[in-house]
């Protein structure tokens, strides 16, 4: 058999094996995105939307002040959520990878951190009500400690609650990839640094932190994209008082203004893609698995 024939046989069998995946992604990922792009140029009135080729949806979106305010607000959520999840994720992963010494304990504690990921996000949001509510645990504790006289109103249904929920839901997306990267760091590098007289702090900042960067980047991609497109956490935790890019799209959908929603979705997608492209320059995902 010639080399060409062998190569094409490999290609054929690989594409047969990949075909169910491609069918799902083609029908439910590529086609929907193409449809959104197409519909973003359509027109609409109060009753229906119809084929057209108009830039009105984009013109309206890109000239409205509220668009820029909402993007700024959403970016604020992204930055705050990223700072907290990255700091918490790095610290937790560092503890698990370098301070827990037996593999069994590492796995057990790691699983303890991942189990909530497999439970419902909605319920995890609801579960903050008894803590943050007007008569919740946080307010009652602060009052009984004499730190405040009246309940703090900003705890539930506020930006504070939104960020708290993001950190609660998404810290895990940082812990897992950073831990994964840290476990592959060659321990002899740390020994070498110690032998050369590096302090524990120097080892952390000059050896472990740079080598953990790929994991940190993967986690960041997760957190940034999840927060950028979020509509449900912002809606629930702000008590419908705060806006986000995702919520604008959801509102337009609720009003059946599909072409407007599609245009907003295209702009959101482009924004997210640019952010990811910047982050991807810093790391090769496939090497990290």
């Amino acid at each position, binding site marked *: 058999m010639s080399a060409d024939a062998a190569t094409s046989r490999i290609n054929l069998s690989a594409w047969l094996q990949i075909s169910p995946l491609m069918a799902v992604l083609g029908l439910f990922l590529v086609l*929907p995105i193409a449809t959104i792009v197409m519909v973003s140029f359509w027109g609409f009135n109060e009753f229906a939307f119809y084929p057209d080729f108009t830039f009105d949806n984009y013109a309206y979106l890109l000239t409205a002040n509220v668009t820029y305010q909402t993007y700024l607000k959403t970016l604020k959520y992204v930055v705050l959520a990223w700072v907290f999840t990255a700091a918490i994720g790095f610290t937790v992963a560092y503890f698990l990878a370098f301070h827990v010494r037996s593999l069994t304990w590492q796995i057990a504690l790691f699983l303890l951190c991942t189990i909530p990921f497999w439970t419902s*996000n909605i319920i995890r949001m609801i579960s903050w009500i008894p803590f943050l509510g007007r008569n919740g645990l946080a307010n009652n504790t602060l009052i009984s400690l004499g730190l405040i006289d009246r309940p703090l109103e900003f705890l539930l249904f506020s930006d504070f609650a939104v960020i708290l929920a993001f950190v609660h839901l998404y810290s895990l997306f940082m812990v897992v990839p950073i831990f994964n990267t840290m476990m592959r760091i060659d321990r002899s590098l740390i020994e070498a640094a110690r032998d050369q007289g590096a302090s524990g702090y120097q080892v952390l900042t000059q050896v472990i932190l740079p080598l953990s960067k790929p994991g940190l980047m993967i986690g960041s991609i997760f957190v940034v994209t999840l927060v950028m497109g979020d509509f449900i956490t912002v809606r629930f935790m702000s008590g419908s008082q705060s806006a986000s890019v995702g919520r604008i799209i959801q509102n337009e959908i609720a009003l059946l203004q*599909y072409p407007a929603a599609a245009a907003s*979705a295209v702009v959101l997608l482009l924004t997210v893609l640019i952010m990811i492209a910047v982050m991807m320059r810093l790391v090769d995902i496939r090497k990290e698995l």
Partner: protein
Amino acid sequence: MGETRSCSFYVLAAFFALFVLFLYGPIITIGILSFQGPNGGLTFPMNGWSFHWFFDLFEQQAVGDFWGSFSRSLVLGLTVMVLTLVISVMAGLAFRKPFRGATFVFYLTITSLIIPSILISLGVGLIFNIVGLDVHWSTSGLGAQLTWTLPFGLLIMFAVFNRFDRSYEEAARDQGASNWQTIRHVVLPIIAPSLIGIALFGFTLSYDEFARTLLTSGSYNTLPLEIFGMTTNVTTPVLYALGTLTTAFSLSIILVFLGVAWWMRRRQSRFGSDAGKGLV
């Protein structure tokens, strides 16, 4: 090792403990509050203890269609689980060969993972609308959920095959096994514990999926959609009772899967290799 623990160990251990408390504290709180007495509210103090709110859950008119949405989520979750497992394993096998377009397929799968969920919801909804089909949880909902579970399945397969020792396969081939026999009798049994992991992701991610199912499930809600609907109009601890029940269900599923994976790994390490145990 025997070195004494440094001071930083205790600081970090305390931080870790706080993190775990942060993760689990709220859900434990609603677990406790779901046993509120009949006159109890959404926050502490406890106004007596009872199963009142759990019983309330089973009266359909009180809280909507709990059983219906639960059984839909269960069926959908199992379907997604099986499909995710089969499709991921097939795709994982393909990626072991250098085939044309591999990089494209890889990035397409990553796109599926990190694309904002509302785009899937909106796009799939639009397609069905334009074509004139009704969205339904078992068609559009199923497809939308697979765009979320398949990337996890494929990433796990990558991790598995990156660590896979090919000499087992070569040994099987040397003994005259066909391609299919090698996969069926050598590769699949070796990676079986990881397949449990994919199944776990497939089921739980589907069972709890919200954002991609929102516009694609049609007039019959899945459980997360039903629960979210309740948050806007239910102001009694029945919400907590529902949260407690379904979290308990999720936790028992997770424990079963993890238990099975652990048992399989132990079995492998006990029977899998007799290296070093022979008579030299």
